[in-house]
């Protein structure tokens, strides 16, 4: 028995419950706020209350968001998906190759190359020179230049991840494949790439979250209404819907759905990926 007269076990239960409620409210309330406001009408959303929508109009709001600016949101979803998927595919193929060579090879060039790779983990991209470069190459305001930039920005962490994992693959594996007559390319494509699948999963998850949610780089490097990406529609609508918060939150909800679904399906994988990306990077 304790001071309060309750058994220790009961106090423990109560403390745990209070903690759980506190954390849930602290982290969950803003999400609930978005979910509720996305279904309100204009006057109710203006009140900023944490309340149930009086006359729920989720679909109507969603419809209006999608119809705005000739379907800018749909175009944005398409653009963002194209950029995200293409970047990830390139990242995997070229990142795994580099990780393999930079781990296996003992050469003088490896150290300086790794230095450049690690520098990319912290150095911020040079904005205006990149724009100038894209203009000079004549590829400014194109989706594929955005893809190449996303690849460049995400390459360092990708290479570091693949390189770290290569350590756990015994080199005897490579040697026996080579003795059996495999070419370097076959070794990479048939042996190494399938073996590094766990990292590939990590790279997919990390890059998908990063690139889909990327706001800064498309803001600078991909201007233009036809090139709009998901995060930029939201940003643009911020001024447009200054008085229609229900629509703004409807848009927020719509944009948060892909991460939400991904999170529910791949919860463990995402957490593991983020930890690996952070610790190794």
């Amino acid at each position, binding site marked *: 028995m304790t001071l309060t007269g309750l058994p220790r076990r009961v106090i423990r239960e109560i403390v*745990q*419950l209070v903690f*759980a409620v506190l954390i*849930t409210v*602290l*982290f*969950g309330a*803003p*999400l609930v*706020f*978005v979910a509720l406001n996305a279904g309100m009408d204009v006057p109710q959303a203006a*009140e*900023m*209350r*944490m309340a149930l929508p009086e006359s729920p109009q989720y679909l109507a709001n969603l419809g209006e968001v999608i119809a705005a600016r000739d379907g800018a949101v749909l175009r944005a979803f398409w653009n963002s998906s194209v950029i995200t998927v293409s970047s990830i595919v*390139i990242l995997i193929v*070229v*990142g795994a190759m*580099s990780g*393999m*060579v930079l781990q*296996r090879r003992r050469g003088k060039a490896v150290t300086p190359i790794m230095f450049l*790779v690690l520098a*990319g983990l912290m*150095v911020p*991209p*040079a*904005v*205006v*020179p*990149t724009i*100038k*470069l894209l203009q000079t190459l004549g590829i400014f305001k194109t989706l594929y230049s955005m893809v190449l930039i996303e*690849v460049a*920005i995400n*390459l360092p962490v990708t290479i570091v991840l693949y390189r770290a994992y290569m350590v756990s693959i015994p080199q005897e594996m*490579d*040697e026996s494949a*080579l003795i059996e007559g495999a070419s*370097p390319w076959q*070794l*990479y494509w048939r042996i190494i790439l399938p073996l590094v699948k766990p990292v590939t999963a990590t790279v997919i998850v990390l890059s998908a979250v990063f690139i889909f*949610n990327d*706001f*800064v780089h498309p*803001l*600078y490097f991909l201007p233009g209404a036809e090139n709009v990406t*998901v995060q930029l529609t*939201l940003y643009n609508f*911020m001024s447009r819907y200054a008085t229609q*918060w229900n629509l703004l939150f409807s848009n*927020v909800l719509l944009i948060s759905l892909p*991460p939400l679904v*991904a*999170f529910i399906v791949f919860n463990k994988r995402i*957490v593991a990926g*983020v*930890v690996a990306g*952070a*610790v190794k990077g």
Partner: protein
Amino acid sequence: MKKLLNNTYSYWFLVPAGLIYVTFFIAPTFMSFFFSLTRWTLFDWEFIGLENFIMFFQESSLKVGFRNTLFFATVTALSKVVLGFALGLVLTMGIRFTGFLRSIVFFPTILSIVAVGITFRRLMHPAHGAINRTLALFGISGPNWLGNVDIAMLSVSLVDVWRGVGIATVIFIAGMQAIPRDYYEAVSIDGGGFWRQVWHVTVPLSRPATNSVLLLAMIGGLRTFDLVWTMTGGGPGFSTDLIASIIYKQYQAGFYGLATAGNVILFFVVAAIAVPLFWFLNRKEVTL
């Protein structure tokens, strides 16, 4: 065999990645060192020496960015370390709802930052925002979170901690789960209670996790742009302007040389803080 292996792991494999990385990342970085010394219109440039940098250190609307950036990065990084450690500790003790709580703490980190910024702008509204309404229930009159020049930077930092503490937490959890039970038992046999176990086992053996969180949060904090930009646009006044938001403003205004100088300054600020920090933390790392 050595020759065969060197032929196998040919540097040619580095060419695709290298080409993209050098063209779109390294080359612009080197270009920035040059163009930061110019008055630049994108079509034409005029060499003006260090004038852009002098401007950055003299003009009060630019200078403020340093202080804010350092404040923001330090406050958010330290908070993430402390809170992430505490949450990690509680969420590895085997309490009820652990799985759910881990998920809800982590979830904000994969949300769009723009969405988070918009939502908190609304929640932090001085008169009607949900935060001040809740505080009012307890008889506290909440501040004008984003409108008061003295606390706006702190408010944005708070939101960044809310958004980013989940990453810190999962990193700490991964680190804490790797600590063998025997260590705790050893302290316990010597008569050490919970807090002694935390202090003598969990804290020192979470050192690698602490280092990762600190470094990651520091670098991320110094480079932050999107959260501040969507929440305050650098205002009120220049009270929440960070180096990264000043770069964007100068870019928008067409001062490309000045914006690039800001970029170079950010480069050096990040390097000056991250490199020594990395070196210092790794030197003293405790190994399991």
